[in-house]
């Protein structure tokens, strides 16, 4: 066991987790589940919630000193509540699963005062953070008004080929339930297609609840003290299903984007016919031809994934590909006469 631990520590050190983190970080194993519940009501009635299987409730009080400093954060407004000594019935728990479509998180925030809060028109909130990987990755932050049913994604990464905001992808639902509030979050794999956890990857994760102020790990933005989510390794069939789903999404995205870009740049009045004919059309036609050569997407399989290796990223990010073509074209045009 000691040898195994030593080896594991070495591997984890290479990917940015220190020995201290291994010991200190909570670890939640996110399993695969076929046809998982979708939405708060479905989760409330699910086997997992009823049986408690996969229930994670190791929440600790939020650091009160750190909480005082939250007022300095000018970027967001938080409805924080003071910690109370009697938190009976106000426990917090979450469940997580994944399937071919994406990652499902259900958070149960019990609160005996829920009706009183609703009657008073007050809101309570959760804050989630996660990083799709352990190092050199962006982190995501979402603030959820559980009774007001507001969702605010705060993007710390800048949009480019390797980062996209989740606000256009994720689904979040928060509803009062018996004895509290249920909050559901679904993130489709398409949103994080370039960081899929297909090899038991660990992601950093935390949930912070503000009434009462508790956390699963760390304070806001404190990624080094978050817990860890380890995704169960998918079977070969499930992994392939995920990859095929992504590939189809990429192909559809490319077609939509290409149509839009072609329409714009080939427009005689608003586009640039020379750019369209010399730079964009050849690329667009080539990608379209290749995509069609793969046949009916409904019949794609593992061989299709291998055949289209290298295409996925450009299909998913075709608008950036076009920007790169345009930049090159304009630079070539600027320097057509090298020295004037």
């Amino acid at each position, binding site marked *: 066991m000691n040898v195994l631990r030593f080896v594991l520590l070495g591997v984890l050190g290479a990917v940015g987790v220190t020995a201290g983190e291994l010991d200190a970080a909570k670890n939640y194993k996110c399993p695969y589940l076929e046809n998982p519940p979708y939405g708060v009501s479905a989760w409330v009635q699910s086997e997992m919630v009823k049986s408690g299987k996969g229930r994670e409730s190791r929440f600790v009080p939020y650091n009160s*000193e750190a909480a005082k400093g939250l007022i300095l954060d000018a970027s967001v407004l938080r409805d924080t509540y003071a910690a109370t000594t009697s938190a009976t019935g106000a426990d917090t728990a979450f469940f997580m699963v994944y399937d071919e479509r994406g990652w499902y998180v259900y958070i149960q925030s019990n609160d005996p005062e829920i009706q009183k809060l609703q009657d008073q028109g007050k809101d309570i909130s959760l804050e989630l953070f996660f990083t799709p990987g352990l190092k050199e990755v962006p982190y995501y932050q979402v603030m959820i008004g559980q009774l007001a049913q507001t969702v605010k994604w705060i993007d710390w990464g800048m949009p480019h080929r390797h980062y996209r905001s989740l606000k256009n992808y994720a689904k979040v639902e928060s509803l009062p339930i018996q004895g509290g509030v249920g909050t559901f979050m679904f993130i489709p794999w398409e949103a994080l297609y370039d960081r899929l956890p297909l090899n038991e990857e660990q992601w950093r994760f935390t949930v912070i609840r503000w009434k009462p102020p508790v956390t699963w790990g*760390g304070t806001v933005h404190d990624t080094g*003290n978050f817990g860890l989510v380890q995704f169960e390794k998918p079977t070969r069939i499930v992994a392939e299903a995920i990859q095929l789903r992504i590939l189809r999404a990429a192909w559809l995205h490319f077609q939509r984007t290409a149509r839009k870009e072609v329409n714009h740049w080939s427009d005689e009045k608003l586009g640039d016919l020379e750019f369209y004919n010399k730079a964009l059309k050849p690329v667009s036609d080539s990608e379209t031809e290749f995509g069609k050569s793969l046949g009916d997407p409904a019949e794609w399989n593992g061989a299709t994934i291998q055949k289209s290796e290298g295409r996925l990223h450009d299909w998913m990010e075709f608008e950036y590909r076009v920007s790169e073509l345009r*930049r090159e074209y304009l630079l070539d045009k600027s*320097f057509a006469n*090298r*020295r004037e």
Partner: protein
Amino acid sequence: MMKPLILALAVLLASSRLGACADFDCYEVAALSSIPRLPNRLPSDARLGARLRVVAAQGEFEPASFVVSPRVDVAKFELKSSALVSSVGEIAASNVDIKVVKCWYQGGTAWYSYFADNNRRELVPELLLNDETLIKVDNDKRENYLRVGNEYRWISYPKEKATEAFNYLTESVADSKTLLPVRLTKGENKQFWVTIKVPEGVKTGNYVGTINLIANGKAAGQIEILLKVLPFQLPLPRTYYDVNAEYLVTLMGTGILGMCDALGMPVEAAEKQQVAIYKNLLDHNVLNCRSDLTLVNKRDRDKAIADLKRELELMTKAGFVMKPLISRGWAYWGGSEENKMDLFKSRIDDLVKTLTEAVGHHDIYLATWDEANTDRVKVLRELAEYVGEKGLKLWATTAKGRHFDLAGYCIDYADHGGWPDREIAATWHSVGAKVASYAGPHTGPENPDVFRRWEGLARYKANYDGSFNYLYFSALHPTLYQKQKANVWNDFLGDQFRRMNLVYPTANGMIDTLAWEGFREGIDDGRYATKLKQDAAQAIASGKWQAVFAAKKALMWLELLDERTADLNAVRLEMIEYISKIQTAMEN
């Protein structure tokens, strides 16, 4: 025998020019990019090649970058730029500045945000140095060391190990004035940053130059520089919604004279450092420097007035826009002034008199309590009456649901916390007030694209009137810095926030960073957009239908542009293309 040798030499020369040679490869990379250029892997956008293509306006600073990927160790790697030559003129080699980009360890949220994350360390590129040995990085321990005098001091210690403050005003830290040779280590990529300063009077045209690469004393290749100088200078930035309305660019924390005085520093030394800061600010598009000296809490009123006059003199000499002025805190109770309206009024009276004498006007925005709570906003309303009576204006850091709702009628410039939003701009504009923003985000993230985008077109197209962000660098508190054991170089001391540094201060000037270059380019994007809109307005006014159509197409494109997600490098070139089309249509 000779033929194969000549052929081999020709191939070697060609491959050097193309970026590949026996000892290393050169890759072009976009200077402003969200992809960090790290030693351990080539960035995904790297293109094998040794050519930098730069398009810039007259008088503009414009960056370019490349990565060297060594196959062997090179003990001494030098880079020397030539002049940039064209058939219409020459740009001196001294206008081509080359720096090495230093990677070091910062907190866990590095690259992305400014929040403290002291339990983790990430290696990020940040510093633009002439001497890469100014900072030593231990990759095994993930620690940083700063050369102070002749010794290296640990600067990445955790808070509990802090023993004393680091006074950057007096400590012997200095970068070299010129680029020194660097060391290349096999398998470790190294990024270089090139900034071309296009002189204002230079002629339009294409210029060519080279950066000669010398490895261990031997010529090892060249990077070709192609520079296109555009036929115009960039105008001062104006707002998106009104091409004649000023767009003010300032930053908090740029004044050090007050602190130097409090620390007992000789005036000459303090002014030298302040003047260096002013130059740095102007070189990075901060055109409206904040006057940081006030009369608040000053027992010697005459000295305080003299100091303020001197500060205004230095600012004028530096070349800042001096009308309107922006100030630090004036419109609030200072120290023992609580409820003493007479003291407050006399301070304001002295300010008006001083400004009139020093700069010939009193067109100034006075600051008040920072992030004032409801009670203070109500007090502010009382103070605002005298400010208004004297013809001065008020700026304040504001928050939703408070400042506008309670005091919207008396705040002239709202520096609204958070990310720019057209709705916020519309709210303040409805009462004739202007709006800027801060903390959207704060400084601190190293990613240059963060500041290019948020300080640039995102704020501009949200119809804001300026940028008043926090903070130029994490300065010392004049009275608390020793108790705080502050250290501007240490990213691991904050409880809530990392060091908020766009620059790092040293005895001989400021060390620039990628984020700071992004800031400048963001404001430049706004200036290009201003140029586009001004030219479009002229074209529309001409009545010539071809020019009118060209102008409106440009305006359509700018409005439809998704400035929050677009590739800004392509956007810049597109703006230049539209400007050119409008100009051509006007000429025809």
